[in-house]
């Protein structure tokens, strides 16, 4: 390495190596680059002390700031909870029937319910709350257990046929397979379809329906909402609306089960879920009238005008 010399044309020192006559100039780094490099070293030294850095046997060194990504997430969640605390307290203090009278609170409840729905309900009822065979559609105007805000709240709180909840919604339809033969079941299915203007009515079917079904489902198939008995004279079928589907359901009824959410969710979340489900278009009861009475609240000043959706 003793071959260092000053390169004549450039006036710069060489690094002293030579390969096949090729030499390299020892051009200094640009100073800004050098200082940036030193700065990164200083940064690293500080970082190693403050933050988790050195991998040890089972974990990395903790760092004096005690920072962790889990801790950061927890802090962010706490901050989000804190930010929501006010509106949640307000929702908690408002009876659910009174929610629609306060459009802002209702809007917040619906938004919160939409988020909770995706996490807790969408698995069975679908992301769009449109349900599936056996899992009721929550958008339509057909309600097994009532479609007012408080009805929905009760159903979510205590569940449907949920044994662990004493106040759960429960009813049972007997299985007619064995009590009636196949032809009789066909006749009943035909009559049920005829209640909705489809299928073939028959005297035998009408008689069988009156003897076996009308007590609960009503002579006209109107159902009994207080007991959760579905109406048979409408266009909506939970377990399918073909003659075969109906025959199967009469012979060996299936019964949906929904957990009681009071054990899993807090009352405010349940209230928000009820508001969301109610807002999907089929909500019943005094709610729509109250909502109509409430003004659309033109923002009285700039600050609240901005709260209205303001993108183009």
């Amino acid at each position, binding site marked *: 390495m003793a071959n260092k010399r000053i390169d004549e044309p*450039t006036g710069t020192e060489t690094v002293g190596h030579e390969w096949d006559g090729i030499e390299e100039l020892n051009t*200094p780094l640009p100073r800004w680059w050098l200082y940036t490099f030193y700065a990164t070293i200083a940064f690293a030294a500080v970082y190693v002390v403050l933050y988790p850095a050195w991998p040890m046997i089972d974990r990395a060194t903790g760092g004096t700031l005690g920072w962790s990504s889990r801790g950061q997430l927890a802090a962010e969640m706490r901050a989000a909870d804190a930010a929501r605390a006010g509106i949640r307290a307000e929702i908690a203090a408002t009876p659910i029937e009174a929610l629609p009278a306060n459009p802002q609170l209702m809007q917040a409840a619906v938004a919160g319910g939409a988020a909770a729905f995706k996490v807790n309900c969408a698995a069975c009822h*679908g*992301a769009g709350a449109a349900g599936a065979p056996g899992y009721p559609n929550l958008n339509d105007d057909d309600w097994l257990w009532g479609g007012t805000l408080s009805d929905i709240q009760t159903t979510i709180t205590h569940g449907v046929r949920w044994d662990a909840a004493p106040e759960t919604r429960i009813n049972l339809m007997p299985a007619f397979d064995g009590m009636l033969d196949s032809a009789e079941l066909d006749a009943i299915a035909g009559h049920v379809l005829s209640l909705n203007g489809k299928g073939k009515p028959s005297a035998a079917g009408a008689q069988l329906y009156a003897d076996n079904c009308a007590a609960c489902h009503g002579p006209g198939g109107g159902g009994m909402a207080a007991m959760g008995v579905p109406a048979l004279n409408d*266009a909506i079928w939970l377990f399918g609306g073909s003659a075969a589907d109906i025959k199967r359901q009469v012979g060996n009824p299936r019964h949906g089960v929904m957990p009681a959410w009071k054990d899993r969710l807090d009352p405010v979340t349940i209230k928000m879920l009820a508001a969301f489900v109610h807002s999907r278009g*089929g909500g019943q009861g005094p709610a729509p009238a109250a909502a109509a009475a409430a003004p659309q609240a033109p923002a009285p000043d700039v600050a609240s005008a901005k709260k209205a959706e303001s993108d*183009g």
Partner: protein
Amino acid sequence: MADSDQLERPAPDARPQRDWAAALGTQAGTARKAIEPDLLRTDLYVKGKTVHNKRIDGPLRRFKWAVMLVTLTIYYALPWIRWDRGPYAPDQAVLVDLAGRRFYMFDIEIWPHEFYFVAGLLIMAGIGLFLVTSAVGRAWCGYACPQTVWTDVFQHVDRFFDGDRNARMKLDAAPWTAAKTVRRLAKWSVYLAIAFWTGGAWIMYFADAPTLTRDFWSGEAAPVAYATVAVLTGTTFWLGGFMREQVCIYMCPWPRIQTAMLDEKSLIVTYKDWRGEERGSLKKAAKHPERYGDCIDCQLCVAVCPTGVDIRNGQQIGCITCGLCIDACDRVMREVGRPRGLIDYATLEQCEAEAAGAPAQPAWKALLRFRTLVYLGVWSAIGAGLLFALGTRAHTGLTVAQDRNPPFMLLKDGSVRNAYTLRLRNMEARPRAMTLALEGLPAGAVMWTEAVSLENAARAQSVTVPANATQVLRAYVMLPPGSHADGFAFRLTSDDEQGETARVETTFAMPGDDQ
């Protein structure tokens, strides 16, 4: 970095080149060859030399004062002008409301969907720079550029604390005594105060100025406000107080773009060498009047230059064409009884003509060029287009998003319901009553929303859209059993004298549509 050396160094052959290509380059052409061997040995880390420009008075200096006054007044005062827009919009004349997504400029209010106005203004600003360059050369650099204006301000601060050129040079070279330290600290404090005021004024454009000022000092303003002020204070302090002409020479792309845009018809600051050369003092000239030109080599033009260039070396990137050397030379010429204009605004073409004996031409004649007129035409056309668009834009808007999940809903009685999310836009600064109606659906079709319940469902309904806002409205449209529809439209009409209408076509999904 070697360039800074060149700028200070008088070229061995001081006679500037009349060859345009060389003259428009960074340095007088012939100088390069002589410097090259030296240049190769230059230290990579050349130290910047502080420019201590001498005070000068004259018409161009006074013009520069006026421009500085106007631009700084606009910058510092504009956000404080109030502008009444009624109770539903802010009363600040110029406000870039990023959080609320509105740009306010006096009577003009820009919404995010109208961002093309901002794009148009930026294009106009770009072409405006071309226009100005084509008409009056680097006038932007010389007078209006913030870097120039703030450098000017800081140079006056220097003058106030440390005296004029010679005193400042002396103080710079002097050892760091207590007195010098105190002086420097005082000067830098003033730098910092100006820089802070500059950074502080910037954020006023983005929020209500009086409120933000209160919040800022009480510690309640947004962190981004403090960060912005800190960054702008730092950059103003550093770029205006210390970097100065180095920003123009090394950092700014605009001088380089302009060197490509200048040609022989561009207005530049020129030293009329055929008149000035050969330089010599009055005494020498008295002895050999036939040998010496008008330039008495007093170096005043170099002393007053805010970027420290010698204009007698020809056009160069460091020359921001502020014209202070013209003021200086004119004064000297007056004192020695020679005609003014040895250094003057002129085009290279004019210089050629004058050198050949043509009379001097007033500088404004350089303004009327085909290229300038083309730029002016394009610039004005864009401006007129924007004004037309602004005057004819609708202040009502409607967008429709159909629910996809579920696409339709079968109801108990067999009727079919679709849901739509509507956005009703009201760009007026007052709540407006509007009518939302269905078009093209068979009889029996009805609509209801959060505002109008199912019991009152109809084919049309009234909505009051809040001032200066977009209202989100979820609308349900229902078709009775047995009817069918493919497409239809929502029509939104404002129930006021404007009678604006927005119509959006959409579809109606039915069971079986997707099979």
